[in-house]
């Protein structure tokens, strides 16, 4: 994504200046000019993608730069998955890919063909909340709720991974999910409740 290319800019300015003088001339020169531009600023590339999200198959044409997080939020309008840093540092965007917890902001959508994604929206069984969702509700495992979907997706995986033998172990394995409200008491209690 970083395009700080001084050589290219000078090259572009020079060529564009020279080409301007040739203005209305041959189509081949014009096409050369267009090619030169493209060398500097690559056009957007799209790639077809078939991906299963929450048991529903989507056929999409995705920008190769699009992350799974932005695909979910911007293209599929599944906004339950949150953007908290976009750098894999906060855990708010945690989803399950093939049943394992994954940071969707560090996952390019283009890497997903054939994979199965579960987001917070796909966790409940209709109106029946997943036990972890119910536990977060009862233990007040959140305040503002923004990190909550990521916490819950991680918590489900944490239980599945078996990292719930002690408060210290839960805390350790949930430390990739930041909560600025500091609702850690309730988060730990929720996981203990489900792990029982």
């Amino acid at each position, binding site marked *: 994504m970083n395009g700080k290319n001084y050589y290219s*800019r000078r090259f572009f300015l020079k060529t564009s200046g020279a080409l301007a003088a040739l203005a209305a001339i041959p189509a081949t020169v014009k096409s050369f000019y267009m090619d030169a531009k493209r060398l500097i*600023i690559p056009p957007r590339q799209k790639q077809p993608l078939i991906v299963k999200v929450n048991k529903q198959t989507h056929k999409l044409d995705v920008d190769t730069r699009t992350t799974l997080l932005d695909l979910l939020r911007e293209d599929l309008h*599944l906004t339950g998955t949150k953007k908290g840093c976009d*750098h894999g540092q906060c855990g708010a965007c945690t989803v399950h890919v093939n049943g394992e917890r994954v940071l969707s902001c560090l996952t390019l959508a283009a890497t997903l063909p054939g994979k199965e994604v579960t987001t917070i929206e796909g966790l409940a069984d209709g109106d029946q909340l997943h036990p972890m969702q119910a536990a977060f509700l009862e233990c007040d495992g*959140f*305040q*503002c709720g*923004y990190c909550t979907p990521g916490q819950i997706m991680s918590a489900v995986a944490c239980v599945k991974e078996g990292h719930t033998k002690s408060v210290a172990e839960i805390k350790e394995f949930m430390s990739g999910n930041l*909560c600025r409200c500091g609702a850690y008491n309730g988060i730990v209690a929720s996981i203990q409740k489900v792990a029982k």
Partner: protein
Amino acid sequence: MGLFNTKNKAAGKPDGRVEGIAKVTGAGKYAAEYKVDNMCHAVFAGSTIAAGTIKSIYLDNAKQVEGVLDIITHLNKPAVPGFASETKLKETRFGLPLFHTDKVYFRNQPVAMVVADTLENATYAASLIEFTYQEDTPTVDFKKAHPSVPLKMQGKERGSLDAWSNAPQVVDQQYDIAAEVHNPMEMHATIAHWTADDKLVLYDKTQGVVNVQRTIAKIFEIPQENIEVFSEFVGGGFGSGLRVWTNGVGAVMAAKAVKRPVKLMLTRSQMFSLTGYRPAAWQRVKLGADNDGKFLGIHHQGKNGTSVFEPFQEGITSITRMVYNFDNLKAEQSIVPLNLGTPTWMRGPGDCTGAFAVECAIDELSYQLNMDPVALRLKNFAITHDPENKKPYSSNFIDECITKGAEMIDWKQRKQQPGALTEGDWKIGYGVAVGMWGAGRGNASAGITMEKDGTMTVKTAMTDIGTGTGTAMQNMTHTFTGMPKDKIKIALGHSTLPTAGSQGGSTGLSSISGAVSAVCDALKKQLADYAAAINPAYKDAKPADVLLSATGVSLKTDKNEFVSLADIWQKNNLTDISVKASSGPGAERQQYAFCCSTAHFVKVRVNTKTGKVKVERAICVADGGTIVNEKPAANQISGAIVGGIGMALMEEIHADEKLGNLVGNDLAGYHFAVNADAPIIEVAFINKPDPYVNPSGAKGLGEVGIIGCAPAIANAIYNATGKRLRDLPITPDKVLV
């Protein structure tokens, strides 16, 4: 337990907050998550210098990026009326004339904005914009800059310095705190949609929709009522949502320029520069006492950083005037302009900073006197009267807080001799400190719409940033009317709802409780009037005598006089009932002083080889009047302690002195407490109603939980190691030196 702690579990659903299901299922919509047709994306390009003037801008490369709709800079911006002159800018109170100046005041200041069809294209194009500058030398180091800034008197001097110049016991020390960033988990974001030339819809992350309306109306010179603001779910604030920032103004400008709805979400690194922070502070506290530990006087000096384009002064010395009896008190403050963004209120603003110095100085005095720091505080608390204005406190249980906290942590395990408790490489220590915050209350309105089946929707424009306002409103409505909770719905965070101030300064619940009480009375009065058409016993019935149930109304008399809602609706030919009421502080504010308070107790382990500090136990006992919502209230306090642990041990922004950029401005570089950094925090409440603060008897808890937490940790580290560390955060390097 609390007055409102009435369990009423709806069948099959777990008991939780009113908005809980929306939060655990991901259905709740935060600012950037609304679906708006034809929406495009705006991304800021930030300055790469911290001080100077923009000389030239190269947009050619960025313009070639596919999907770019517009690039806005100070050279081509659509003129914003509120930024047309210095005078107008002052009136907007916005501070930064976004894209209306060639001046650069701080690094990462937005100097261009790309609007494009997709986020990817906008981000890429923004990275291709190039600037040349005339660079000035920035000033970013607070510690180097503050000594040359003189202090000014802050408030009235009480007594005199001379009166205690011969005090037998004196502590005179200096304390430093690094700047901290709010960093709510949701980054600030706005979707702006011009629905007509002078009509605007905003989906904004804010702690106050009315403040957004007012500010944007001033800046763009359109009527306030033409701006509709949605802020139904807010991903944390801690003060950063009390102002409108560049993302709001930028999105509105961009939407006007491209004539399409525009979404602008800041990046995490932009959050460090563009949405305020708790400024770095320096303090000096000189504290005098007699040999029995009675305080004789205090001289408190404080300075805090601000930006070069906007003055921001923290109320660093305010807390010195509230907690203890000082017959002699002098306070001085000043601000230090730096080439950084403007700081703003952050959880427990001012008091949190001031308490660090004062509570550490008192701890130092206790060791000097060889006196238990709990006993020393108990000896000097101002319990009955506010020592500043001499008004009686309407309620103040800070003494009960500290006594209860000492019991909970088993304070007698603490050794008065520092460094006396050791386990292998670990030294163990105990610390205490207290916090206090004025229990404020503002004006607020609320409305209720009631339907024939008894469903009531209680509404206010106030936001709920995670404090549990909505749940508290439901609890209060249930208590005030008798209506079962599952019939009470809550609507919040939308500017067309009955107006209310921002959720900040711990005034949210206090303000809204008055409004909810008033609107419940209005509803009962209205229902009684309608019922009187059926049963004359309701004629002139007082709201206090009327009781609601899911099916009807009754009177608190022997005869009950039940009238069904169905009959009321039929007899009066109703579709629904809508009432609205407002409430605010009154004469009680002239008669009484109001405060909420906390006592913090911590047990720490300090590793003598690595310098690591582990908070093993953290206890907070709080006086927040009546506890309306026990679980969310305890959550508020324990969350504040997590914030306090961060403040004490890890949080700091560091600016590179030469380049003026912030170092580590992301969530990997900036550490706040993760789950493993905090113990299970133990919270207890005094839970006694305040008789005058508002109809619910509840005092706000948002700020007071963090005030006093950091000094309690610093004091515990001293007790563990014998090292007095007066420079926050106390990172391992400082522990080991």
